[in-house]
């Protein structure tokens, strides 16, 4: 993709970002990123301390737990699955909130990914990043250049995966050279690898949310899912990982794990909530919080089975702004921008408006 195009003007808009994000090997009728995915159902049980921090309905004890639907995905916008490629993975969780009248179901979403931080702290920076990192022809680094890298004590570029022709990696690396905020995300993304199973990765919601408890006390927090089975990646020592079932194994692996656990020990994730502190980058998703902040165990998610109608569920739109009383957005500009971008993306690909139609996208609480 030798490009003579010039970058779209700033400020970034949902339209301009979506335009950049769609890849030539993507599908305009599907998501621009996290294109390949699969959904499963399960339930979430709030921990006994969760209500002390958040009055939201899904953090209250509930017999049998709160029903959830979870979509696991590959981060790439390529429409074909490349499960064994090093890539960010996503975990979007929709909690069904208890309602007096079951016909009036309401929901709240928590959108997470395997990167602990985002690539930029503002929508404009993100647009510049996305532009710089739009997939470009990817060819193997010449042996002599690699040799030179080794003499410079630098990481050589990775070899392309089989059938890989375009990649965002080089553009992202170049962008990060000039932008310190992008460094942690790009570095992590470059070395993130591929999980052996969607159930064997930790997922982070990246943005700060404001939780409010029954007494009205508000706290800035960040959420992460930790797999109880532990985090496990494909062996990274071999440069071209070859899982038993080739480049498309994550969905089968998930099905398999759920079948073998039926009625027994469901695969679980714990939801950890980290409390922000004075001096923390509350509104900057490009900066993860160190592991020394107070972490609260908010509950446990059990995954039971693949949804009945996986095709239909691929049409459902999640949104990081689909919140409920007790949890609100922070002043994170990227988060607010994502809310609008997800909405537009949903519209553009004619995604199922349900259950969105009735739901409110909550903004920061007054």
């Amino acid at each position, binding site marked *: 993709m030798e490009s003579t195009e010039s970058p779209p003007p700033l400020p970034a808009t949902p339209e301009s970002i979506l335009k950049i994000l769609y890849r030539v090997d993507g599908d305009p009728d599907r998501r621009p990123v996290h294109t390949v995915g699969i959904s499963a159902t399960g339930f979430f049980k709030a921990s006994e301390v969760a209500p002390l921090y958040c009055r939201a309905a899904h953090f209250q004890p509930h017999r049998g737990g709160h029903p959830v639907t979870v979509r696991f995905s590959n981060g790439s916008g390529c429409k074909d699955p490349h499960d064994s490629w090093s890539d960010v993975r996503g975990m979007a969780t929709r909690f069904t909130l208890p309602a007096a009248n079951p016909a009036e179901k309401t929901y709240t979403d928590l959108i997470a990914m395997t990167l602990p931080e985002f690539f930029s702290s503002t929508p404009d920076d993100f647009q510049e990043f996305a532009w710089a990192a739009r997939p470009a022809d990817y060819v193997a680094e010449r042996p002599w250049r690699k040799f030179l890298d080794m003499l410079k004590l630098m990481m050589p570029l990775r070899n392309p995966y089989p059938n890989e022709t375009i990649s965002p990696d080089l553009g992202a690396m170049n962008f990060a050279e000039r932008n310190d905020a992008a460094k942690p995300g790009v570095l992590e993304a470059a070395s993130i690898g591929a999980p052996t199973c969607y159930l064997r990765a930790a997922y982070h919601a990246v943005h700060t949310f404001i939780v409010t408890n029954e007494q009205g006390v508000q706290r*800035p927090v960040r959420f992460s899912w930790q797999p109880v089975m532990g985090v496990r990646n494909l062996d990274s020592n071999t440069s071209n990982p070859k899982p038993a079932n080739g480049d498309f194994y994550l969905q089968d692996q998930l099905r398999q794990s759920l079948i073998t656990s039926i009625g027994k020990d469901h695969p679980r994730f714990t939801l950890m909530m980290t409390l922000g502190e004075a001096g923390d980058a509350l509104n900057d998703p490009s900066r993860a919080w160190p592991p020394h902040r107070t972490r609260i165990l908010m509950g446990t998610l059990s995954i039971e089975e693949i949804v009945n109608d996986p095709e239909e569920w691929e049409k459902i739109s999640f949104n990081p702004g689909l919140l409920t009383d007790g949890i609100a957005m922070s002043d994170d500009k990227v988060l607010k921008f994502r809310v609008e971008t997800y909405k537009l993306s949903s519209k553009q690909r004619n995604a199922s408006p349900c259950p969105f139609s009735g739901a409110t996208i909550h903004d920061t609480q007054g």
Partner: protein
Amino acid sequence: MDMAKLNDDEIGNVQGNILRGYTLPAVRHMILRISDSAAARAFLAASVTGGNPNVPQITTEQRIGAKLPKLVTAFNLGFTYQGLVALGLAPGDLASFPTEFIEGMTRRAAKLSDFGDSDPSNWPSPYDQPDHVHVIATAYASDDTTLDSIQKQVEQAFDLRGIHKGYSLPNGAVYFGYKDGLSQPRFLGFHDGAPSRQDPTRTEEPDDPLGTILLGKPTRLPDLKFGTPQPKQLGNLGTFNAFRVLKQDCFGFEDFLTSTAERLRQQGVDTRLVGVESVGLTYPDLKDKPDLALREVIAAQLCGRWREGTPMQLQETLRKATTAGPSNQFDYGDGALCPVGAHIRRNNPRGGEVVQRIANFTRRLVRRGMSYGDTLDLANPDDKERGLLGNFIGASLGAQFEAVMCDWLNLGLHSPEITGSNDPLLGANTPETSWFDLNLWKDDDQVAMEKHRIYGLPRFVTTRGGAYTFLPSLSGIQYLSGLTG
């Protein structure tokens, strides 16, 4: 010679404003760079000996009770590490200074919670070039004209990088309306003799050994000695100063009192339980204004003193709020009325229990401060900068100023009840995460106390500049004046 005491020679060798504060009402801090070291050294020599009509003479300490004419002006000097370098102090001697002084205030920013708006990268001139801050000359007088003429003299020998004009506010108050400077250490071997009942320095705290404030003298921890910089003539009887330009958000503070009072009412807190009806005892004009009275209660709890000076700790009950006056004769014993996190208790826990048991009374500081900025009219908010020109003086910046700043003022490490919170008035608070526990009576019997946590305290005080300086004795300044090279 009794090391624990000061003899007359020593007293006359110590710069003024260290062991006792001046009472002159106006101050001028002159931030200086040494561009001509010969001129600077000649100035130092003349400032020590006096008698030069073009150089102000250094003011020294006097024996308490000595019959001397009242001071009409005072003049003192402090040197940064870069200043000592510029004067030509030998490398070996420079290296004998403590690390925190060598690094300077800007490189200690994280320890002092100077981040965000307070980050040294946001400090205006002259503090944007900390390596050019060499000397801080300080003059005190009753009027600006006198200070102007001293400034002119100083400018002859130094490159004037900036000035700060400070004034004492009426009734010994500072912005935020509190009477300030009530509690200061008294020094064994200097302030000797039991203070009379009327003596404002009278306190229940033990007197502090001279090593708290003067290098070369014994400290409270019998075997621990703060290192005296070399050579002895320079280091002995000197001390260190953390000079800070602290901007105060006066309107923000009053707004916070109002909004917190409102929130307490909304939460249905029974205002009798915080002693609102007692406020009228001190503030008769607030007698029938419970809303305003509640604000005063909050202000008192945040500070640990009512704004007119009475320590909360001295109240037998909240109903007897104000009979004690701005006294200093108290300790934090049992059944403390004063919140543990209150400003004065946090920064000087006196004999009260602290986690660092070894540290009781070991982190005492001398504070000399004056306010800067235009007269404040709370009825007419403006965005002018106002604040405090603070001097925090002690023999060890690390063991006193920094120790208080990082473990006590911020963090609150000395009591498990406040650990994780910052000082309500001076701390590096962010509203999203800050909290403070008010003390309330459990019920109308007013016997047992309970806590009521308030949230959302912003940072009321922002650092706008500052420097670590060394305040040598007169012999020390004389030594510097004799350097060559």
